[in-house]
């Protein structure tokens, strides 16, 4: 048996789900492979963490802490928490849409859109092409 094969059946070995032949092959491999032997110990140790987690110590104050939290939250909020959450989410969406609309309005006035500079350049260019350059320099712009 190779180490890769041994790795694949280690769970079944620990769980007692292997037939006799496979158990023999696995255990024979362990006798000659210290790496797989240590890996078996590692997996056993890891799965034993689940066994430890299943042990829940008694806690006589547990219920009291729950009641404290329930009692400290206004009944209205406790009862209607879902509706309040939905209303809060809706308010955020409405605010975002409103802000987005205002930003769009602001940009269409020509201050923010990337094309606005080009538009104004075109305007000025048109003006310059209409008005001869000499007149432009002679005009009272100062």
């Amino acid at each position, binding site marked *: 048996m190779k180490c890769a094969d041994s*790795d694949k059946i280690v769970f079944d070995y620990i769980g007692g789900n292997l037939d006799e032949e496979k158990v023999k092959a696995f255990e024979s491999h362990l006798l000659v492979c210290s790496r797989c032997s240590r890996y078996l110990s*590692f997996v056993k140790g890891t*799965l034993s*963490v689940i066994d430890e*987690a*299943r042990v829940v110590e008694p806690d006589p104050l547990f*219920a009291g802490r*729950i009641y404290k939290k329930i009692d400290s939250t206004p009944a209205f909020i*406790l009862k209607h*928490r879902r509706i309040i959450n939905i209303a809060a989410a809706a308010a955020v969406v409405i605010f975002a849409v409103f802000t987005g609309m205002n930003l769009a309005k602001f940009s269409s006035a020509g201050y923010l859109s990337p094309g606005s500079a080009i538009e104004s350049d075109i305007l000025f260019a048109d003006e310059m092409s209409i008005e001869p350059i000499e007149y432009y320099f002679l005009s009272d712009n100062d």
Partner: protein
Amino acid sequence: MNKLNQKRDEAILVAALKSGDRDAFSTIVTEYRESVIRICRGYVGSKEDAEDIAQEIFIEIYRSAASFRGDSSLSTWIYRMAINRALNWVRDNRKKFRVYRSGMAENERVLENSAGENEGDAESTNADHRKALRFAIDKLPSNQKRAFILNKYEDLSYNEIADILGISLSSVESLLFRAKRNLQSSLSTYYKKNLL
């Protein structure tokens, strides 16, 4: 006859809970506290976090008792709520959770190093086991994780799991088979990466 009596008792308990009866709620807390904490431990590992989440779950049970329609048994309803709440808590606290886990890993590595072991092939410690298990379970897809936690942490039968998750028995078998395979693969990866 026993089952009938159990159902009747449960119906009385649920009716009392729905009317806000605190004694009924206390009975439910007492009866299901350990189960709910075990399920939470499957999701978060830490005892303290599991108890915090469990408290939130019972508050949720108290709050939404009126909406319990009785389509399922009380235990099924509570297990479903526990799983959903625990999953939501992990999602909402993903950042803190990652920091906690990496911090825990860092502290434990410091302790291990200071104990003087430097061999690349040293025996694994309890901390290694906890980290490895957390690593492997967290990598499971959520449906496999749910089935695995209900089966291994709460010792529920395949039928009970099928009822809670609303899936067929064969789906439960398939989920647990794949979970086992994925866990094996993850643990092997973890071992090669960290302990060899």
